[in-house]
């Protein structure tokens, strides 16, 4: 269903452009440090663990757990009116970094912290894919 007001389109920065390009191809890419081997997020030029400038973008498992979540009952932006109530979660990826996202496909009453999730991708009528997550098996 078309939204009268389009959902906000993320404005990629120079640093985050590869992340968003990956998402458009349904790939979850994170920066991986060639020096210390850690992943980090959100994107930035230097490794957040060892400050090395040597990194590459790697596709990650897309699996993780819900660290915490909230349910929006109040409207803050007209584009989300038809979604109310909707869930915003902090997903702790297996690789370490935590991402903010939505949990799709499960009623909000059934969502719990620490449930396992896997990445899905959705457009939601905004003309650009964003990463979302759905509850999955262990």
């Amino acid at each position, binding site marked *: 269903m078309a939204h009268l007001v389009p*959902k*906000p*389109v*993320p*404005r*990629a*920065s120079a640093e*985050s452009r590869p992340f*968003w390009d990956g998402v458009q191809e349904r790939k979850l890419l994170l920066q991986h440090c060639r020096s210390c081997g850690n992943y980090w997020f*959100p994107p930035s030029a230097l490794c957040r663990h060892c400050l090395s400038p040597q990194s590459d973008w790697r596709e990650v498992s897309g699996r993780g757990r819900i*660290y*915490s*979540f*909230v*349910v*929006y*009952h*109040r*409207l*803050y*932006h*007209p*584009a*989300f009116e038809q*979604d109310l*109530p*909707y869930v*915003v979660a*902090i997903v702790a990826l297996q690789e370490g970094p*935590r*991402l*903010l*996202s*939505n949990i799709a496909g499960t009623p909000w009453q059934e969502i*719990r*912290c*620490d449930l396992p999730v896997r990445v899905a991708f959705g457009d939601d009528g*905004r003309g650009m894919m*964003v990463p979302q997550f759905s509850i999955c098996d262990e």
Partner: protein
Amino acid sequence: MIESARTLRNRCAIVGAGNSRLGQVPGVSSLDLFMEAAAHALEDAGLRVRDIDGLITRGPDDAYCHHQQIGERLGLNARFSTSLDNGGASQILAVAVAVMAIEAGLATTVLCGYGRDAWSRTHTSAAARVKNQTRPDSQHDQEFGPEFGYFGAVAAHAFGARRHMHEFGTTREDFAEIAMAFREHAIRNPQAQSRKPLSPEDYFNARLIVSPFGLYDCSLRSDGAGAVIVTSTERARGLRPRPVLIRGFGSHNNLTGWFANDNMIRTAAFESGQAAYRMAGIAPSEVDTVQLYDCFTYMVLVQLEDYGFCGKGEGGAFVRSGALRLGGTLPANTSGGQLAEAHVEGMLQIVEGVRQLRGCYAPERQVSNAEIALVSGHGGNQVCHSTLILQAG
């Protein structure tokens, strides 16, 4: 480090405290509200602008060089002045920096304050009410947030509340007790914004905002300002009001972020509190009253744990004991706090701490025999924290 901290204990004092009109004050800018509070603080101290040589402020988030705008209105050339940028932790930090500036010989008498027009700003139009923003658009995230419908401070703190509930079995009943206790205090405060009694039914029947938070877990949108005047304890002895000594202070910022590690359930209040206790040379059991940064009910509960008034995970049982109520073992936010008096980003907590230690209230609102008050500030992107320990002079 411990030795150097101790040398600042009780070296300075707060000699004046004031606030502006609070709540809904349409048509008055945040700068003019600040000026109202500053004038009251000066009057309280029996001082004039010419006695002030330091100014530390934190403006509304879109005011550039806030202290310069305030100084211009005061007609003040300051020996030491600056604006701070730690969100709701800035107000206590201002007092801490004032002590350091005085001890360094850069100033003798410093005005610290904060003012905001958050009620007016969020009620200019229907669209402004929906957005409920106290900061301009340009300061908000452009990615990794709005595309998921993530907006506002309510959700950020609700994440912490949810995780705390998950790990420790904390419930909304616990949050309700905090909201009801502070509302009960506000009823005794004629200048409080919310003075209607709040029952458990009111709390649970209220609409959810961003769950687990409902309407009464959230602090108020307020116009208002507060100000205090800091000087050396030696000078303070020569002034009219009973001084309130700055026994200790602390600061800690979890700059790794609110989402990192366990920062949202073991907050920077822990380290900030440890630093303040160390400087003050006291234990939590010696604190008579707390004025905590209560942007949301949950933040009170987690700070009580982090400050050591109860163990980690025991905040729910602690508040349900009635400890926070006037007459309880640890009367908290005795003005009604930001949940019920007015939300001025922690500034009014300092003012209330000073007034309680002066013993200036009628018995129904006065913490009996209050000698030590702990005041907290929290803010920025939820990661900045500051602590002030005050002592009756």
